[in-house]
């Protein structure tokens, strides 16, 4: 009973946060590029992760499905980082909400796959995402032409800097998984 209440409260919190981030706070998030790309997008992804933690029984066991899902997650991350997509999310709030739902699902499915995926993919997926985020961050830092007409060049460069930091964090995360999993590895009986 106690667990059910706790879960319901967590579900409610996720729902409320999703609503707050997507509706009342949407204008605030859409005001600058760093807020939109470095706060709102990861926030929705994190809510998806929280949701998956709540639904522990939803798991994807088949490796082939797991890889397919992770490729989809990566593709959606790339899609929502494209300048044209970013512009459209600012012009049309409904399109931005499509992004919110996609990121929520991406976070959710990443965890449902992560629980059972093999070590090789656990290294490759965050490694490649880290590489992608780092490369994008470096591109935004160096680009002197405005990519998204909804924002400014300064904001673009600032976003680049934050993405480089996130990329490094993801890279360290990948290394942590690598050495932790190698350290913990035990013979299967």
């Amino acid at each position, binding site marked *: 009973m106690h667990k059910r209440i706790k879960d319901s409260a967590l579900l409610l919190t996720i729902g409320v946060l999703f609503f707050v981030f997507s509706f009342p706070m949407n204008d605030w998030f859409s005001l600058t590029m760093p807020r939109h790309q470095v706060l709102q997008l990861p926030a929705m992804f994190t809510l998806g992760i929280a949701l998956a933690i709540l639904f522990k029984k939803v798991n994807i066991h088949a490796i082939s499905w797991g890889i397919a899902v992770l490729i989809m997650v990566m593709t959606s991350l790339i899609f929502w980082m494209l300048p044209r997509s970013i512009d459209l999310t600012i012009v049309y709030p409904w399109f931005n909400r499509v992004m919110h739902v996609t990121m929520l699902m991406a976070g959710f499915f990443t965890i449902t796959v992560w629980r059972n995926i093999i070590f090789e993919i656990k290294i490759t997926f965050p490694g490649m995402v880290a*590489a992608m985020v780092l490369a994008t961050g470096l591109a935004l830092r160096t*680009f002197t032409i405005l990519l998204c007409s909804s924002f400014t060049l300064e904001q673009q460069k600032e976003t680049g800097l934050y993405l480089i930091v996130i990329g490094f964090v993801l890279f360290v995360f990948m290394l942590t998984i*690598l050495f932790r999993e*190698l350290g913990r590895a*035990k013979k299967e009986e």
Partner: protein
Amino acid sequence: MIQIDSVEKQQHRKLIVTWSITFLLLFPILIILGLLMRLNQGEWMKLNIDTFYALMTLHGLGMAGLLFSLALAALHYLIGTRYARLSVKTGYFVYFLVLIGVVGLLIATLIGKFGAGWYLLYPLPFKGGSWASWSTGLSIVSLIILGVAWLIGSAHVVYALAKEYGGFTKLIGWQYLGKEEPKEELPAIVLITTISLVPGIMSFLAGAVFLIMNLLQFFEPGLSFDPLLLKNLVFFFGHTLVNITMYCGVGWVYTLLPEFTGREWKVNKVLVYSWNATFFFILFAYFHHLYMDFVQPLPFQYAGQIASYFSTVPATAITMFGVIVQFYHSRVKWSIIPTAFLLGTAGWAIGGFAAVVDSTISINKVLHNTLWVPAHFHTYMLMGVVLFIFGFLYYLVYTNQKQRIDENARFGFWLFVFGAYGFLLMFYLGGMHSVPRRFSDYGGIAITSTHEMGAFLARSAAVCVGLLLLGLLMMYGSLFAKLLKKHEPE
């Protein structure tokens, strides 16, 4: 010790035979590309400049990729049949990914004429006017596919070993550093595989950053990255890849050579210290590729020299000593297999020494842009890694006794070695005479003696490559027949 049944061993064997045949088909083709380049430099034939650089790119990328792929596959086979449970399916997955990447590179270079060289020095891939724009994109995507394949393959092998031997610190032999004797012996191949593949995993990710940045540049030509950053990234990736290819080969020498000499080759404290030094310093040795980049911070240049010495000297010295001890008065029955391992180790020492010489800043100032550079890495790869690979391939198909009566193959082997050393000598002489590297031909060199010496040495090298190919052909007859023959399970 893990028990692997004969069915599983057969599956592993099928996989390695597939890899071996692919290697044997591609290897001479890549050599012929090199031969065409030397013939052009020797003024015995005339290649268009765009064709020359497309061939050079394919030769470099192809050889580095092929040798590492086979080295990884050989480790997969040896470990999967002896030391840890490895998935054959993952092995095939890696194989097909590599195949896709190779086909992409073949199309990009042979049809698209992509010719930016093996390390795609930024911003050259986007500035060259002689190749189709799509070929740049295809090359980048193909390399990303290859990187992912190697990343998955390496992670798979290391993780299986960690499960079998009880964690990472045990894989790198730290249990030998205490006062007590370790309860379980660590095979040397396990130690060296880990020392090679873990830095490899890190370098593949640096390569991924480099390649994705190039991909972004491909889609958005207005971008302008810091060339120094990209050069650091690509050499961290490329240098480490080439280095660990050799170490993978050394790994199987530690395992297979004792079968011929009848002497054990155990891991001990000194071996652990020397290979652990390699594990750490290999990550920083690539700085020696950037000595000519004056904007690179000075401490990195010094770090490059120090790391180059420490990453190679201890492991090489201890392995040389080990090899000598293995052979000394061992009454080994000489066939291609132990000979290839011995000569391969010698090639590693010679090429490695030339590399260490070149990584010394004061000498690099003189040698950097000369043929000394291709001389050292060709020695290391052709007379080191390739000989280890041939030793391994013969081990796969022959018993030592049967191999000893195959006179054709033995003659072919010695012809191959003779041709190869002749070919390498021309590179070293070119370096001594300041013949520049990366020149499609020497016609434009104003100093007549350098021009003539360069062309003469290239012609001599081409003759030696002819001998080398002839030797290869003689070895191929028996190797192919044996590889394609159905193998009876033990």
